[in-house]
């Protein structure tokens, strides 16, 4: 699965995710990628999220929308909300994987709970960062 999240200079957020699914998956199986609120989510008031992982669990926990809900209702930062969902909601429930997210201020977070994660990010005025775990 691949994906991107962005905040532009006008403060608008967007998310995009694309996948081939899992190797040897059952034909017709659909994961979280094309489900808004699960693998892909964006709302200017909170955050944009693109996820990759064990899709069925990301759907059940509505991963992207849950991060936004925690920010909106609990007042958590993007970092706090995303980390909670990846480490406390998904990980204990067989939800291996991770996500990339950006908030309305342009803050970026890239949490994951397993290996095989490929990431790259940049903020205006800073050098790009690329990492593989």
């Amino acid at each position, binding site marked *: 699965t691949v994906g991107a999240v962005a905040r532009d200079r006008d403060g608008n957020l967007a998310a*995009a995710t694309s996948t081939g*699914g899992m*190797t040897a998956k059952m034909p017709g199986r659909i994961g979280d990628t094309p489900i808004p609120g699960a693998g892909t989510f964006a709302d200017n008031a909170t955050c944009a999220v693109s996820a990759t992982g064990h899709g069925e669990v990301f759907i059940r926990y509505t991963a992207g929308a849950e991060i936004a809900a925690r920010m909106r209702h609990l007042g958590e930062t993007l970092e706090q909300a995303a980390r909670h969902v990846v480490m406390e909601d998904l990980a204990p429930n067989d939800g291996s994987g991770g996500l990339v997210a950006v908030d309305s201020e342009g803050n970026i977070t890239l949490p994951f709970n397993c290996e095989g994660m490929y990431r790259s990010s940049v903020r205006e005025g800073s050098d790009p960062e690329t990492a593989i775990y």
Partner: protein
Amino acid sequence: MSGYSLAIHGGAGTILKSKMTPEKEAAYREGLSTALEAGEAVLRKGGSAMDAVEAAVCALEDEPLFNSGRGAVYTSAGAQEMDACVMDGRDRSAGAVAGIFGPKNPIRLARAVMERTPHVLLIGPRALELAQEAGLEFGDRDYFFDQKRWDALQKTMQMRESGEEDDDPARRHG
């Protein structure tokens, strides 16, 4: 108002840490850098977040190293099925496609669903018709074929047949 931000991820499908070589790592880093630059170029010129994420994901879909578009993995039936989604934070508009094969860049078709229809998610023949109407570029089976993805399918099917346990979380990922 502060400046732009962009983050991308590029899942490889079933690549174990133990199989990562310096050469492979360099290739993955190059692929990620190319995609990030594609998206950042849009933002640098004052473009929209939506255009930026589309550009970045298209670059990843064009790179066979990653599991989407040209690098898509195979189903148990030996076919490729692709899913994609976009969402716009300005108004929560969204577009998605699922289980498609043909368009080189499924993310562009997801955006076409968002911009050209009143719907959110399309599957099947009508999704491909929309791709044709939108003038999107198609690829054939040769374009999408990737030997390492095909080999990964054979190995996974052999593991299933032999009852071999698999603790690689990446095998359950896209």
